Every structure is written in C-alpha cells, then in structure tokens.
C-alpha cells in the first residue's frame, strides 16, 4: 500500500510499471476483485464523464438558479472560429471542464473526480487529449486510475473537501491529479507525474471556497476551467524536464495546513469571498428571496 506520493513513485520505479498499474494492483488487493472487474468499473465511470461532456458542449444546459450554463457551447464556437490565442487543444480542455460542471450545476449525472464541485478538470483534460492524440480506450481508463492514485494520497493525507480545506482541496486536488495523469498518458515518467502534480497544486494553494448563494456554480464552474488550463501547463512543464523544488508530498502537507488556517467564512459556508461581495449577496437574495437567512 502506498501512503504518499514518494512511495507511489518508488513502487512504480522499482517494478518498472506505470502509476496506473500500481493503483489497479492495489485496488484488486483492497477490494478482492479481478483486474477485469476493476477495469470495467472504471470504464463505466468514463462513460458517465463522456456523456456529461457531450451534453454540456452540445446542449445549452441551464442550472435551476439560472446562474450558470451555456458557456461550454460558447467556447466551442469560439474555437471553431479559429481565433483562439491559447490554442485549440487548451481551450477544448477548458470548455469540456466547463461542460461537466454546467451539467453538474443543472443536477445532471456526473462522476465526482474527486468531488462534484471539481468534477470538470480530470474529464475535461482527458477528452481534449482524446481529440488531440486519440489514445486507446484502455489508456483513457488508465488516466483515471493515475488521477485516482494521486487523489487518494491527497484525500488520506490532507483533504478533498471544500468545507474542510477550501477550493484548493477540491479544484486544487483535481488539477494536480489531472496534471499527473496527462504526464503518464504522454509517456512521461512516474517522477515527472509527481512533479506535474506538485507544480499544479502549488499554484492552487490558498484558493478559498466561497460559492455565491452556497451554490456549486459561481465561481466553481470557471475555477474548473482554469484548473484544466493549469493542469495542462504544469504537465507540459514537467514533460519538459522542469522539477518542483518542493516535493509533492510537502506541497500536499502545506495545502492541508493552509486549509486548517483558513477562516470558516472561506470554507464552503457562503460567508466570505465572492459570496460576500455586493453582487454575490444580490444574486443570493434574488435566488432565495429576502426570507433566506444567513
């Protein structure tokens, strides 16, 4: 059993296998299931992600509150106009992350990765990669095991809950997980995956959880968008050979401690940050009416 990223990388290197192999093997041991059972279960989750993205980029979904929806469609159209500055692949990932979160906000069916509020980053980057490098279905399923391996370490050593650790614990974790998985899909080493995760998460540290009206919409949808963007850049940096000076496990530990130091107002209580801005308050009053007490 790996308890941290250092052990995860060490097992993969020692046995000359991928991070996803380490995760699959551990899953088989813990749950006493066969390779095929574990793989098929993940394949089902992949299908849920694909359906959510397809819905989000093709349909103009709208949340019950009306705060979010339709931005994934806008971005897809913009990509097709050929004017994009960031690049088509980059924005494709961003739009697919948005698509997932828009479907989530509309009470649609999604797969939490690691949470529902941060469900866009991992599938968003994955399905943009599908479009760009056309990986096999098996490689796509492995992407989720690699993400999951890094996510497990964060969940057990820090937190993946916005109420406990702020948005850095949710979108931050998801961004690190995606960065690590991109590296493996692009044939980087386990060590490079760890550096990608560290670089990505470092740049999400301190991010607070301040949802307007307590809804998983503003700013959650756009934070997933930027998380997807951050993950791609972090992965590219790691694949270029850039290393994080602070080891991944220490970044995770720092994230945990920052979360503990965060005021309660900034941890999913809708009491501070963007939720407490004049416009945030106004939107809240409009959605819930004046009777909704805070």
């Amino acid at each position, binding site marked *: 059993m790996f308890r941290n990223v250092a052990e995860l990388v060490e097992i993969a290197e020692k046995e000359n296998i991928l991070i996803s192999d380490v995760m699959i093997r551990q899953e088989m041991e813990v749950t006493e299931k066969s390779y095929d059972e574990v793989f098929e279960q993940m394949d089902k989750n992949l299908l849920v992600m694909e359906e959510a993205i397809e819905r989000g980029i093709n349909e103009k979904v709208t949340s019950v509150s009306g705060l979010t929806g339709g931005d994934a469609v806008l971005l897809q159209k913009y990509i097709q106009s050929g004017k994009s500055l960031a690049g088509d692949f980059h924005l494709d990932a961003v739009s697919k992350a948005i698509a997932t979160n828009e479907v989530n906000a509309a*009470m649609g069916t999604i797969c939490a990765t690691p949470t529902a509020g941060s469900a866009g980053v991992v599938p968003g980057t994955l399905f943009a990669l599908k479009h760009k490098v056309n990986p096999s279905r098996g490689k796509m399923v492995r992407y989720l095991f690699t993400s999951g391996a890094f996510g*497990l370490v964060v969940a057990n050593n820090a937190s993946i809950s916005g109420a406990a650790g702020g948005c850095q614990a949710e979108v931050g974790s998801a961004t690190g997980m995606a960065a690590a998985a991109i590296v493996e899909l692009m044939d980087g080493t386990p060590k490079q995956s760890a550096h990608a995760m560290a670089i990505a998460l470092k740049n999400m540290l301190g991010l607070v959880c301040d949802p307007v009206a307590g809804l998983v919409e503003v700013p959650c949808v756009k934070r997933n968008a930027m998380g997807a963007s951050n993950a791609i850049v972090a992965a590219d940096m790691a694949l270029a050979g850039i290393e994080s000076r602070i080891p991944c496990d220490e970044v995770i530990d720092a994230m945990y401690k920052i979360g503990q130091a965060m005021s309660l107002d900034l941890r999913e209580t809708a009491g501070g940050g963007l939720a407490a801005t004049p416009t945030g308050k106004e939107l809240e009053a409009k959605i819930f009416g004046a009777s909704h007490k805070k």
Partner: protein
Amino acid sequence: MKYRTVFDIIGPVMIGPSSSHTAGAARIGRVARTLLGKQPKWVEISFYGSFAKTYKGHGTDVALVGGLLDFDTFDQRIKDSLKIAEDLGVEIKIQEEDAVPEHPNTAKIRLGTCEEDTLELVGISIGGGKIEIVELNGFLLRLSGNHPAILVVHDDRYGVIAAVSNVLAKHEINIGHMEVSRKEKGKEALMVIEIDQNVDDILLAEVASLPNICKVTKIHD
C-alpha cells in the same frame, strides 16, 4: 486510511451539484433508512455548520430525503424527493442549528414510524461523497456505510462479544472492523461489526437468540 479505494476518488456517479452536500447527504439518509429497516412515517433533520448554511443551494435536504426513500446517489428521482415524500405521506421537518459541530458537514436525523420505533443518528460527510455515521441512539461509533455491517445492541456483560463472534466464525464470516461502545458500564452497549460479505437473516436470528442481546440490525452495500 479514510479513503481505501480509487472509486472513492474517481466516483461516485451521482446527481449534482455537490459530492459532500448532495451525494454524501443521500448516503447518510440511506443508512438511516436501512437501519430503521422500513420507510419512516416522520423525519426530523437538523443541519449543522456548512450543511446549515448552504443546504438549500446544494439540495442537501432534497438529497437526504432521497436517501431516506432508499434512492442511490445516481437515482434521477432524487431531484423530486420532497414531492415524492409528501405523496407517500412522510412528514419532514428541517432545522438549521447554530451550534458549531466538530465536522462542518454534520446532520442529525431522528426518524421513525411510531413512538416505540424511532432512531436517532448523526452523520458527517467528509468529502467526495464519503460519509461516516458517528452517533447512533446516543452511542458513539464510526460507521462508513461502505461495507456490509451488523449492529448489535446488547447488555454490557462478559462473554457477549465472544458469543457473537463465535456465531460469525461458525458461518465462516470474516470481521473486517469491529468496535464496541457503551454509554455506562454494565448497561446497554452497541457492537458494530463490519464484515466482508452480506449475511442472511438466519445468521441474524441466531445472533438475536443469544443471551443478553436486545436488537440486531444489518446494513449492506
């Protein structure tokens, strides 16, 4: 290790918008329903911390009631659970509490069918849809709801734990995690036994027939 499987991280498949405030709430409700063993006639829900502040926005109430109606996290009916509960004649009361809980996402649920048949539990949603039941009828415990489990209310006497585990051994059931909690020495105690597979009613009846056993219930995957 709080999180054991990769599907705690890549999963659950669920109706949005929040894994802790929607899927987790549905799971807490479903464990309560399972422990009661039938559809409740009335339910009193108290929300604490982040649950109290944001339950309307996250649909925590809707999801929790969905769980009480035995809906899973991905069940489309969750969205309409309040209406469905009303149609079924289940009386629902919701309170926002000011007290600061140990965990920010805490819900206390009282539910029942009549005066004698009630249950009170406290559940926390620890992130990514994962939950723990931390209190049941005043007993402190730690129950994930992710594994089949047997709950035994018994008199706090010597030999009771051995007798129960002997029955499990006879049926070749392996114990994954076990804990015993009591409110007072020599009075009522609660045994929580997490096991690897579902058990049948014959085994439960056998446990129930042992001396000093008051009540036996099970929850399963």
